[in-house]
Each structure stands twice: as structure tokens, then as C-alpha cells.
């Protein structure tokens, strides 16, 4: 017993660089954008924070079990492993290049060592943008090779990177790991100590710890804190190849489970274990079925008002909860699907009553997007461009396979399939418009316990797949676009449009929570935001980051006038045309602003070093 204890090498005690090297085959590893490249955070020094030369992210290219691989290791010791512009860009750039490898016949897989609290609040909107890029590249790479996430602790994996974990092909966890969306301190700040006591560590681990997540089926493999075991689990995952269906595509089981539960009082962790297990084990159902009958009531909000206006008050689809409004209505000469999350004062789930994105909202949004895309698959009664006909009645499974096949034949644009990749089939891929007015994700014990990070991953998965398949996806920001809600529903859009209005705010976290986490006052944060554009909440600062395609002035942002709606429709139609004229289906159109130049610099340098 003692000798095995002495022989065991702790994985957790290794730093990021050592963890990555422990997993790669000996002598196969090459670090890219190492600290000596000195591409540092442009934003931290002006806040009096010392910038680490690798920005807390280590990138290694090499081989694992003889396969080409890229390992991205987040350094949990630097700024809590939070994602800043540069560190986030390193991960995204490496995954993007791994995708290109695969398109050229090199089967590079991805491994993410996730030790992160999510967005670095000192870089807020650029951290959020980088995480959106990571999500996009992860979903693309995942079509070719497995992407394996490893959460070892002690920091765990939260925030937008918790969503990334939910997108991985396989997840390996230890007992010390935690996986969730909102950190305990944030939940305590937003929902009160009765909702979650952030100092009650045993409870927190029982709710979101590695053992619980593995028992729930939200993680695939459990490893002791032992380098040999962690590597063995990793090899096992890679040898399995791609899963038949990714966890983030398994909507119907969760939809049914959530429809049948009592959110109040919040179940114990032991019960939440079996609830999620059952949801994941459930057989896929037809996408149109299973939803609870939803009332058509919804509380007032900007999002609801704009959605109603843009669709001429067309009726919302049945089969969705009151918080998820899905309306099929014309946009120009074609039908589009309009989606919004709206408040519901009487909702069964108390934590979503103000329009927050919670469990049902996540899984139903994913359903709404996937259902729309299923109808446009070849074999769904339209002229086939030669892609394999797919059984569109098969629900989530069929969509995943079918869209992958279609996207892969369309390739990367002009170079694949001849011409600009445009065909009769492409013109029939109808748009999706997400009307964005979301104060945040839901902050709750139930939400964390039942895997809110996974529900939001389902939305990201569906939205990214829609975009990659060729559906024009537009986000119209009419109110708040904060944190996980924005990341899930808005950030995978081809184009983002925003109103120029004080009520339009984009950020990674509400001010009070952000102040608590960064140990500053709200006033100090507001002062900093004036000097550090990515930290600002207002839309003009956000536009300066290059994230928006267009902005528009509205006469009445709360209750749009006839002129406002007409102007918005024109912009939406122009956006659809702009997307269809663009050969790229990725998020690269967001790069190029002066305030985001480090993100481009990282990509250039990574490209230079990749093929050496």
C-alpha cells in the first residue's frame, strides 16, 4: 500500500506544461507560442496586473499513442486559468489548424486540459469572443477526430469552458475535479446563500464534483490522481474513435426528463445523479415529439416585443415552454425561424422567471434549431445535390450524422466541391434569427446539479452545426446579451447585429458578481472599463472589438415602431445575402479590428510554427 503510494505520481501536482508532456509520447512534443514568443495580454498591464508570457495557456503539438495530436493545457495557477484574449486565441488557433490538418488528410486529434474558471473578467468581452471561437473550432474538429477533455482539479472547469467541456467527445475527471457553469461564489452572489453556500465544500463537490459528474454520465471516465491512470484513460478514449452521438446532441432524453420533474424543492444530489443518468440513457425520439404543451403566455420584454414585431405576431410553435418562443415567419422571400428566450413569471423553474437561460431553455433551443435544419436536409423532399439521403424522422441522431455528411461534402468553401460551394441545395438552407435579450444564464443549485453547462453546450452544438451546414444564422441584439445565454444562443451566429441603445449591454458577467470575483468595487470596474474596452458593457465599445457586423438606431428600442421593424428586416435580409456571398462558414469575419489585433497575431504565429 505504502509503496504504491510512493510510486504513484500525482497528475494534479504537475503544472500545465508538465501535465501536457506527461500525456504526449516521449520526444514527440513541440511547444508552440511558448513563453519566449512573448505574445502577452495587451489588457492586463494597464490594470496593474502582471502578464504571464504564455498568457496561462500551453500549446503542444506531438503524438499520443502514435497519433498526431494537439494538447492545450490551461495553467490554473495563473489568474485562475481564466481565458483572456491571447490564451483563448491560442486554443482556438490550434484547434482551427487541427481541423485544417484533417481536411488535408492528417488525423490530428485534440486534447484539452481544462483548469479554468471561464472568461477572464479583466478582458471580459474578448475572453467571451475567444471562447466562442474555441466552441466553433471544437465542433468542427469533433467531426473528424475525438476531442478529449481532462478535468483534474483543483480549479475545475467552469463558465464558457464548462460549455466547452460539454462539447467534448469524451471527458475524463478525477475526484478533485468540478464541472459546472456558474461558480459557487457567483451563485451565492446572484441567488443568495440559501441557494448555494459557496463555503460548503463537501456539498459543492457532491453537486458538481468529478465523482458525481461521472455517476451522472456527464463525464465518461474517472481516473485517480495518477499520471499513469490519466494517460491510460486518455488512450482508451482516443482508441474508441468518434462517439456515435455526442452528449451535446442528446436533446430528447433531457427534454423528457425535465418535463417530468418537480423543480421545487430542489432534489438532493443523489437523486440528481439518477435523473441525469436516465436522461442520457434514454433512446432518441423524433424531434417533434415529447415536449410539454406550452401556454402561449409570455411576460413582456424587449426580446418578446421585437420577435412579435418582426414576425407580425405570428403564433409561436407549440411544444416549447413559455420561455422559448419559436416562430416561423417570412424574411424577405423565404421562411426563417425566429427564436427568443423570454421571461415567464409563472415558470415552474424559479431561476428563469426573468428571462434567464436555464435547463429547459437550453435543450429546447437546441431542439428548435436542429428541427429547422433537419427539414432542409437532402432527402427531406428536396432536390438532392448528391449528398446521402438521411432519415429526418430519426431525431437527434439522424441530424448529427446527416449534417456532418453534408458539411463535409461542402468542405471549406471554394476549394471543395467546385465553384463557390453554392448549389440549389444551399439556396434552400433557410435562415435562423436569434433575437437576443437575455440577462444571463440561470443561477441555481438545481441548474448546476442537472448540468446546465451541458444544456448550453447543446445550444452551441446546434447553432454551430446549423452555421457549418450553410444555414444563415443571425443574432439580433436588442437588449442584454450577457454571459452564458449570449455565448449559447448568439455567439455561434454568422453575423451579429445590435441596436445602438443604452439598454443594449454585452458582457461576461453582471456588475455585482464581476466586482466580487475580481475583488474590486463596481465603481472601480466602471472606471477600468473606460480604459479597457473589452471590459465595457456598452454597445459602442463592443462594436470597437469588431464583433458586430452592423448596428442600427431604433426610435423605440423597448417597443419597436413600424419603421424600426422595417429597418431591422432590411438589415436581416442584407445579412442573409452577405452570409450566402461569403465562402467562409466560420467565425473569422469577427477578426480584424484594431482592438482585437492580438487574436490575429496569435493565429499568424501559430500558422508559422505549425508545420515545422
Amino acid at each position: 500500500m505504502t509503496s504504491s503510494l510512493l510510486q504513484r505520481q500525482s497528475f494534479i501536482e504537475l503544472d500545465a506544461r508538465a501535465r501536457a508532456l506527461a500525456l504526449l509520447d516521449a520526444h514527440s512534443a513541440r511547444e508552440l507560442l511558448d513563453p519566449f514568443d512573448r505574445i502577452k495580454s495587451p489588457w492586463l498591464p494597464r490594470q496593474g496586473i502582471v502578464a504571464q508570457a504564455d498568457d496561462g495557456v500551453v500549446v503542444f503539438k506531438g503524438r499520443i499513442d502514435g497519433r498526431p495530436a494537439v494538447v492545450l493545457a490551461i495553467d490554473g495557477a495563473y489568474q485562475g486559468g481564466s481565458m483572456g484574449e491571447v490564451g483563448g486565441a491560442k486554443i482556438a488557433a490550434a484547434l482551427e489548424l487541427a481541423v485544417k490538418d484533417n481536411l488535408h488528410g492528417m488525423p490530428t486529434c485534440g486534447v484539452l486540459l481544462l483548469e479554468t474558471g471561464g472568461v477572464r473578467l479583466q478582458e471580459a468581452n474578448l475572453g467571451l469572443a475567444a471562447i466562442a471561437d474555441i466552441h466553433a473550432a471544437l465542433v468542427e474538429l469533433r467531426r473528424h477526430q475525438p476531442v478529449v477533455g481532462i478535468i483534474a482539479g483543483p480549479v475545475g472547469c467552469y463558465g464558457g469552458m464548462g460549455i466547452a467541456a460539454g462539447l467534448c467527445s469524451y471527458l475524463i475527471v478525477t475526484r478533485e475535479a468540478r464541472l459546472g457553469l456558474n461558480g459557487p461564489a457567483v451563485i451565492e452572489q446572484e441567488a443568495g446563500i440559501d441557494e448555494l453556500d459557496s463555503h460548503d465544500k463537501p456539498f459543492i463537490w457532491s453537486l458538481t464534483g468529478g465523482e458525481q459528474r461521472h455517476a451522472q454520465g456527464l463525464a465518461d471516465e474517472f481516473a485517480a490522481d495518477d499520471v499513469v491512470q490519466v494517460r491510460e484513460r486518455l488512450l482508451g478514449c482516443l482508441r474508441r474513435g468518434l462517439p456515435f452521438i455526442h452528449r451535446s446532441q442528446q436533446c430528447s432524453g433531457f427534454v423528457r426528463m425535465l418535463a417530468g420533474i418537480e423543480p421545487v424543492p430542489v432534489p438532493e444530489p443523489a437523486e440528481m445523479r439518477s435523473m441525469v443518468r436516465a436522461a442520457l440513457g434514454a433512446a432518441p425520439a423524433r424531434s417533434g415529439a415529447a415536449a410539454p404543451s406550452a401556454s402561449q403566455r409570455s411576460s413582456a420584454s424587449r426580446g418578446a416585443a421585437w420577435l412579435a414585431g418582426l414576425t407580425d405576431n405570428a403564433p409561436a410553435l407549440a411544444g416549447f415552454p413559455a420561455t422559448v418562443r419559436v416562430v416561423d415567419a417570412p424574411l424577405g422571400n423565404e421562411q426563417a425561424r425566429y427564436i427568443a428566450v423570454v421571461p415567464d413569471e409563472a415558470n415552474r423553474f424559479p431561476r428563469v422567471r426573468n428571462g434567464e437561460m436555464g435547463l429547459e431553455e437550453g435543450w429546447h433551443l437546441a431542439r428548435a434549431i436542429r428541427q429547422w435544419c433537419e427539414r432542409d436536409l437532402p432527402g427531406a423532399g428536396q432536390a438532392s445535390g448528391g449528398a446521402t439521403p438521411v432519415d429526418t424522422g430519426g431525431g437527434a441522431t439522424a441530424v448529427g450524422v446527416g449534417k456532418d455528411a453534408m458539411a463535409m461534402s461542402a468542405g471549406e468553401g471554394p476549394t471543395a466541391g467546385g465553384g463557390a460551394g453554392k448549389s440549389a441545395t444551399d439556396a434552400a438552407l433557410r435562415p435562423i434569427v436569434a433575437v437576443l435579450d437575455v440577462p444571463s444564464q440561470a443561477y441555481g443549485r438545481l441548474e448546476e446539479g442537472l448540468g446546465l453547462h451541458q444544456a448550453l453546450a447543446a445550444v452551441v452544438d446546434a447553432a454551430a452545426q446549423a452555421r457549418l451546414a450553410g444555414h444563415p444564422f443571425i443574432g439580433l441584439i436588442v437588449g442584454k446579451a450577457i454571459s452564458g445565454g449570449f455565448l449559447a444562443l448568439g455567439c455561434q451566429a454568422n453575423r451579429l447585429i445590435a441596436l445602438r441603445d443604452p439598454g443594449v449591454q454585452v458582457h461576461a458577467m453582471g456588475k455585482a458578481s464581476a466586482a466580487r470575483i475580481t475583488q474590486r468595487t463596481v465603481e472601480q470596474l466602471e472606471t477600468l472599463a473606460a480604459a479597457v474596452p473589452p471590459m465595457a458593457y456598452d454597445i459602442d465599445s463592443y462594436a470597437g472589438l469588431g464583433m458586430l457586423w452592423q448596428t442600427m438606431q431604433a426610435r423605440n428600442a423597448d417597443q419597436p415602431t413600424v419603421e424600426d421593424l422595417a429597418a431591422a428586416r432590411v438589415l436581416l435580409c442584407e445579412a442573409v445575402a452577405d452570409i450566402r456571398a461569403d465562402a467562409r462558414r466560420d467565425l473569422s469575419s469577427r477578426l480584424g479590428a484594431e482592438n482585437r489585433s492580438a487574436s490575429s497575431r496569435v493565429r499568424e504565429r501559430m500558422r508559422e510554427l505549425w508545420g515545422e
Partner: protein
Amino acid sequence: METISFSYAAQGAAKGRAIAGVVASGDLQVLLEPAAGRTEIRITTSVDGKAAVWSAVLDRLFASAALPAARIDIDDCGATPGVVRLRIEQAFEEAGAA
């Protein structure tokens, strides 16, 4: 935040590159690369007003051993003199082993 620079005479040149430490509270990260001639050190630190302490620590370290010429960049987050010395020695050791 402050940036402070130092220069010391050296014997020979460092063989390789090395990284030691992390920019966490009470710690520092040392980046060491080979150089010719003298050892040049540039420190970025979150703690202001301690130039004299840095000077004392580095004077003592470079007087105690015949260290090869290197370019050293330090990103410091409030490390104590003991930790500073530890990390620099660690970096030299790794560079020598390279």
C-alpha cells in the same frame, strides 16, 4: 506595476533556454535565454518601490556563483526574496542541463 533592469558580469554563456515558476500570488516566472557577454535582467513586478530589495537579492546571488551570461525576463507577483532566488537558480539549473 514597475519595470526594473539590472546588468551583471558573467562567465561563459548559458547553454539553453529555461522557464521556472508561474505568475501567481507570491511567485514569479523566470524566462532565461542564452546571451553573450553580460547577463541582462528585466523585471516586471506588481509590487512597487522594492528596487533596493531586488538589487540586494540579485547582487548576492550573482556574487555567490559564477553564472553564465543570460537574458533573463522576470514577471513577478509579489514573491519574497527567498522565492526569487529559488526560481532564478532553478532556471539556471535547467538551462545548464539543456
